[in-house]
């Protein structure tokens, strides 16, 4: 029976937190009440990407994009839109800079500039149903790979596509597969295919969304990789903190097995390959290849000497191919549409040598001081400015952009002058940051770069496995110095000391966590040295964050006496009658920032 309309409700973790599961139930109940259940189908889809505006619902075929939908809006939607065909104006999305709402999805700037390859099926299919994935020609790439291509051909195709590791290292996947395959043949040991879904970077949730929206793309990518490399066993190492993604992936694996796409004699082509899900135990360091494999083997998750490459001697000393979720998700389309199609996107000419550029697209999770927080997929080579301002919708509260942090804790902070730089592997690394997994944290004038550096160093000190001296002791001492600077007790030679420590760590640390840990400090020193000097010499915190160095005050010009801040202040440091300009007692103030949160007039000053 053909449905005349589909309501696509986003059930990514963000929207689920907003209550989209209940939304679906009430919507279905309402439709049934109105007897429309045979005409209108309600589908729950993966993450639509626009998390800031969640829970999101799209009504097709008209493509109307509703945001911040709540259960109490359901009767209105059914009545007005589904019955009478008039979109509910209140739920439409109006970009912050404009007045009029934009009903159609394709017109919304957040989506317009994106190019969906990995996220092509997000919001279109129900991740729990394999039929939906097959409907959008899922597993046809697998069929092509098994029947029409030789394993060597598959590897060559990936190599020529210039696909580089989306986990952060940017190592060409084709070369990795080739070496792994060769090692398997030479040593006569069956290689292993592993998917790294640990995603430990704070603020990064790309892999989660990919798995939650389109798990089969990852599965299909892994099977093709296994065919190319000649592996018989596969693992997905997913972090413990992604229960919904794990449940959907497990469901996908079971369905794939039922459909003969996984397990014994896949598609009758005589290939045996199965995938098992293994959970991480909450250690950021287990995102690193050797630590991950140690954890897979049940051992203490700590990295080992890197000169023994995991593609030759990895999990249980077998050749192991470790790629990120996003890398595998790209594979089916490359096989289906060919390497040239993929190489045409992105920067540089990768046909001869994958190192010469960054082809394909990259998924970023845009967070921080940005209007359109969410998941975006943009072609390589796009500029930071386009991402932040066109797609991201600029900085809220009209504040000024200060910096953007890419690559998670191992990445660096790029200042305003770098906004027009093309976003790809090599240029980011040159600029002192790195592509990393794809976390992009936007910072405005009210963030203190010293505090940001201290936050990341604190995170890394906590997450360092502590095995080798420079990382364990280096991070601890760096944190002490940064905290000292933040408390206004820093000395000018501390800056030289930080740089020296950073250099030694980059030289001597055993694994990437250690060698890339100094990046936040070194990049903030490189671009925001003046903020450090302000903290040390002037005992001032430009971003108004470091408690020891700021004092709170109320700008009489802006304060309209709305009394909100008095209620929020826990130490009764603010006095004043309603409708009158209020005053703040500096001695009582503990600088907790509660008043800033509630002040609609932005009247609280931090100097």
């Amino acid at each position: 029976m053909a449905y005349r309309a589909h309501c696509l409700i986003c059930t990514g973790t963000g929207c689920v937190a907003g209550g989209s599961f209940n939304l679906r139930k009430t919507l279905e109940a309402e439709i049934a009440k109105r007897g429309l259940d045979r005409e209108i189908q309600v589908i729950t889809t993966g993450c639509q990407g626009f998390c800031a505006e969640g829970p999101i619902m799209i009504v097709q075929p008209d493509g109307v994009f509703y945001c911040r939908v709540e259960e109490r809006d359901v009767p209105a939607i059914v009545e007005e839109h589904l019955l009478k065909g008039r979109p509910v104006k209140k739920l439409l999305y109006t970009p912050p800079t404009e007045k009029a709402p934009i009903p159609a999805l394709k017109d919304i700037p957040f989506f317009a500039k994106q190019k969906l390859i990995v996220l092509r099926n997000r919001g279109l299919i129900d991740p729990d149903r394999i039929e939906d994935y097959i409907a959008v020609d899922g597993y046809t790439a697998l069929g092509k790979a098994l029947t029409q291509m030789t394993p060597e051909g598959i590897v060559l195709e990936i190599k020529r596509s210039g696909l580089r590791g989306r986990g952060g290292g940017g190592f060409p996947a084709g070369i990795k597969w080739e070496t792994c395959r060769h090692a398997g043949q030479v040593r006569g040991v069956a290689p292993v295919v592993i998917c790294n879904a640990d995603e430990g970077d704070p603020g990064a949730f790309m892999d989660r969304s990919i798995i939650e929206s389109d798990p089969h793309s990852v599965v299909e990518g892994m099977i093709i990789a296994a065919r190319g490399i000649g592996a018989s066993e596969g693992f997905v190492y997913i972090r413990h903190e992604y229960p919904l993604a794990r449940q959907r992936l497990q469901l996908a694996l079971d369905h794939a097995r039922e459909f003969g796409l996984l397990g014994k004699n896949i598609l009758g082509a005589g290939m045996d390959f199965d995938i098992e899900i293994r959970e991480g135990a909450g250690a950021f360091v287990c995102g690193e290849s050797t630590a991950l494999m140690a954890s897979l083997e049940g051992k203490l998750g700590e990295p080992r000497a890197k000169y023994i490459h995991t593609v030759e001697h990895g999990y249980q000393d077998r050749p192991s191919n470790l790629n990120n979720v996003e890398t595998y998700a790209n594979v089916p389309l490359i096989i289906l549409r060919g390497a040239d199609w993929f190489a045409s996107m992105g920067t540089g000419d990768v046909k001869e040598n994958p190192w010469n550029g960054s082809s394909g697209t990259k998924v970023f999770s845009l967070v921080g001081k940005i209007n359109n927080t969410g998941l975006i997929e943009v072609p390589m080579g796009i500029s930071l400015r386009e991402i932040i301002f066109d797609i991201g919708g600029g900085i809220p509260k009209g504040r000024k952009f200060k910096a953007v942090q890419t690559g998670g804790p191992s990445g660096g902070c790029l200042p305003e002058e770098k906004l027009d730089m093309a976003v790809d592997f090599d240029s980011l690394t040159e600029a002192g940051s790195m592509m990393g997994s794809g976390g992009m944290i936007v910072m405005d004038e009210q963030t203190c770069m010293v505090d940001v550096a201290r936050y990341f160093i604190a995170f890394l000190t906590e997450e360092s496995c502590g095995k080798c001296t420079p990382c364990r002791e280096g991070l601890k001492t760096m944190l002490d110095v940064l905290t000292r600077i933040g408390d206004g007790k820093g000395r000018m030679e501390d800056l030289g000391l930080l740089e020296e420590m950073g250099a030694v760590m980059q030289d001597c640390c055993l694994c990437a966590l250690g060698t890339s840990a100094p990046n936040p400090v070194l990049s903030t020193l490189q671009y925001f040295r003046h903020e450090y000097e302000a903290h040390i010499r002037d005992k001032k915190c430009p971003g108004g964050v470091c408690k020891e160095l700021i004092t709170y005050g109320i700008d009489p010009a802006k304060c309209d006496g709305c009394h909100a801040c008095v209620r929020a202040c826990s130490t009764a440091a603010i006095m004043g009658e309603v409708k009158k300009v209020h005053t703040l007692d500096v001695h009582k103030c503990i600088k907790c920032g509660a008043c800033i949160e509630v002040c609609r007039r932005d009247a609280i000053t931090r100097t």
Partner: protein
Amino acid sequence: MKTIKLKINGIETEAPDRTPLLQAAERMGIRIPTLCHHPLLEPYGVCRICTVEVRIRNRVRMVTACNYPVTNGIEVFTDSERVRRNRRMILEWMLARCGHVPVLNRLAEEYGVTEPRFGRGDDDCILCGLCVKVCSEVVGANVLGFFDRGPNRTVSTAYDRTSDRCITCGACAQVCPTGAIRIKDDQEGIYQAMPMGPLTSINIDFMQAVPRKAVIDRDSCIHFKTGKCQVCVDVCEAKAIDHKQEDRVEEVEVGTILLTTGFQLQDPRVLKEYGYGKYKNIMTSLDFEVLNNAGGPTAGKILTADGKVPKSIGIVHCVGSRDQKYHEYCSRVCCMYALKFAHLIKEKIHGCEVYNFYIDMRCFGKGYEEFYNRLLREGVNFVRGKVAEINDAALDPSEEGKLIMRAEDTMIGVVRRIPVDMVVLCLAMEAKPEAKHLSHLFSCSTGKDGFFTEKHPKLAPVSTPADGIFIAGACQGPKDIPDTVAQAGAAASAALSLIQRGEVETEAVTATIQEEMCSGCQICVGVCPYTAITYDKGKNKSSINDALCKGCGTCVAACPAGAAYQKHFRDQQIFAEIDGILAI
């Protein structure tokens, strides 16, 4: 294994494939500092102090020398400025955690780190992981492990409790570069129990041992506890070590047996008045012999328990010998070795006072008396009298910390108090307790002192009543080495002459048992002095072994049924003799 060409600090060299840079450099005499490396263990590469600068195809990288393998054309710089900067910083970081560890301070001095910028912590574990790795890789007890992560990372046992899997082998304490792990020395008086000093599990007892072969002490060897280690096997070039060897009981058909089971020293603890075991520095003559031995724990130097050189030593003769309460016999050898000790002490420790307490100086052999006179000339003090008591109750400061020997000097009729630093007890030579059992086994008897009794004290000192069984050495009575050697020769030649003859003459008058009359009461088995009669359970009969029967006839007289008879002494013959006698 193909060899790799490389350059270290500008010097061309080559090394077999897969050799770590550290070893390649060491072979050329270039020292690269290490902290978490140990030749017996897999390289762990965590302290990073061994990081060196390498150039491979004009790309400069910093790698840890301890585990990075040599590759063709690699150029290594073990001491460039960048390497030294890294080492200084790493040392400062380590000192921030363990500021007072000698091994770190030595390295810090070498690299000019005098004022560590992050202060000096007072922890002593640099988390090098050697203890964890030796415990799992070599010992196999898996007791130690790392806990927590980041700066809180520590080494400990499971749940921080004393683990019952720890076999106290001390390997962790030995490999720990900073001494953070120590063996709790809670057994008092270790010196006394192990005068030869603590031994490794595989050792050669002493240098003069014959055969001079290494033996494994099964109780303390780690392999027998956890199945791992076997480091000795890897290190032994002759590949002579096989842990699977078991004790084998071998049954050997022999014609002659030589009993040379030797003696044992009397247990000094029995003579409470001499205080052995209660006070340190009181030792037996054997202990002193070991102390004197160049291969001993002190390489021949005579030292007290706490390592000082004694100024005065007392040597007590006849301890337990010529003593009604213990052994009435004279142990024969003590006087002469006591004199030897006195001479050695005089020679080794200039100006040391030596007191020999004796009853009679028995210098019975060739050149012995002359030796005694020489000692008199050398100024050894001889006190004729038995030592009554040794204790440490000092009466005045001069005796403080000394052992007081109270003895009556019968020459001058005075009871003397002599404070000394060390006492040697010349204990009696005793028969081994097992001799009694052996004597039953080989049907030769032991005298009242437990020494084997020879067939004839004068005419057959090395043979026993049982033909083919000979005795020699101290098991037959206290004697010194010359006499023992002489007896050994005698016993060996007696045995050889027997072997030469090839067969044993049986006695002419042996007894036999008539099977049909024997009712299996085994009374004869009980009375036979030579265990020549064996009872056959199946036939319920006893039978006599001609080779062993000496023809004494005791069994014949004891047999109630008259089943046993003796050739040439049948009842009828005796009755005939009686008739003959009474006929006249």
